[in-house]
């Protein structure tokens, strides 16, 4: 994966597979702390201690098409290569919280990438899930919640051209606003 945003797209599929109806994705960037932190919190079915202990092992997967799962191990390796970490807390029946951190200035840190593209893809791919996306950059915050939009649409799909443009613009503008003034190292 060439972007952090692509990793996010990849790992949140675990939340959907766990039956989550709400997923909160928070991407925090701090120049002063020199960190990029991503938190994915879902209300899916959660994992027990046994599964949790070995979820970073590529040869552990719940899927049935093949016996290898790479999503979390790939992201963990990427974070650890940048003085970071990946942590997962989970409560069966309650949900799972995944936190991953990168040293922002690390030479090997991949770019944040197209966050708007990732969120839009999730909205289209899993319209049944409530997506709450927060992007915090040096204290400035942009929050996007899919619920009021889906409610307002009342059955009209997001893939109608005018609505697609609207949502896309909302995301792009919001993200650009909080990223304003940040050096263009992305």
């Amino acid at each position, binding site marked *: *994966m060439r972007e952090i945003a*692509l990793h996010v*797209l*990849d790992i949140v*599929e675990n939340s959907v*597979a766990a039956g989550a109806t709400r997923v909160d994705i928070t991407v925090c960037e701090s120049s002063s702390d020199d960190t990029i932190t991503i938190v994915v919190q879902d209300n899916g079915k959660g994992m027990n201690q046994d599964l949790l202990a070995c979820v970073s092992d590529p040869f552990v997967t719940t*899927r049935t*098409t*093949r016996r290898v*799962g*790479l*999503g979390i191990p*790939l992201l963990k390796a990427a974070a650890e290569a940048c003085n970071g970490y990946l942590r997962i807390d989970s409560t069966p029946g309650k949900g799972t919280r995944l936190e991953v951190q990168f040293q922002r200035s690390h030479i090997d840190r991949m770019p944040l990438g*197209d966050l708007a*593209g*990732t969120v*839009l*893809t999730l909205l*289209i*791919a*899993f319209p049944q899930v409530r997506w709450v996306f927060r992007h915090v950059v040096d204290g400035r915050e942009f929050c*996007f*919640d899919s619920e*009021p*939009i889906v409610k*307002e*649409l*009342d059955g*009209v*799909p997001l*893939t*109608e*051209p*005018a*609505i*697609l*443009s*609207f949502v*896309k613009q*909302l995301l792009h503008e919001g993200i650009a606003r909080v990223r304003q003034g940040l050096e263009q190292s992305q």
Partner: protein
Amino acid sequence: MPQVKSLEELKRLREEALEKRQARTIAGRAQVVVGMGTCGIAAGARDTMKAILEFIEKENLSGVVVTQTGCIGLCEWEPIVEVTVGGGPKVTYGKVDAEKARRIMKEHVMNSRVVEEYVIPS
């Protein structure tokens, strides 16, 4: 919060979209499925999805259902796109980059002509 204000705009867009959808015939309905497993995403599925959505926007295509699927075990063919138009058969395309996606949208989704050269051989 700016989002509250723009919900008014969304309401208007919704009404317009609804009218347009009703004007379209059922036969024109198409379903486009993009493979979005780890393999698909690593191979560029998000850009493929993006190209498809941009095409819909640009051509003002109403009534196209876009959705995703996980890994279907054909990782070497990712990004994979499955297209069903009206009552026609499901066609599975392989190694679909943005360029190929636009051609599939134009020829298959808009004009019901399968793009044979991108179809995964069975």
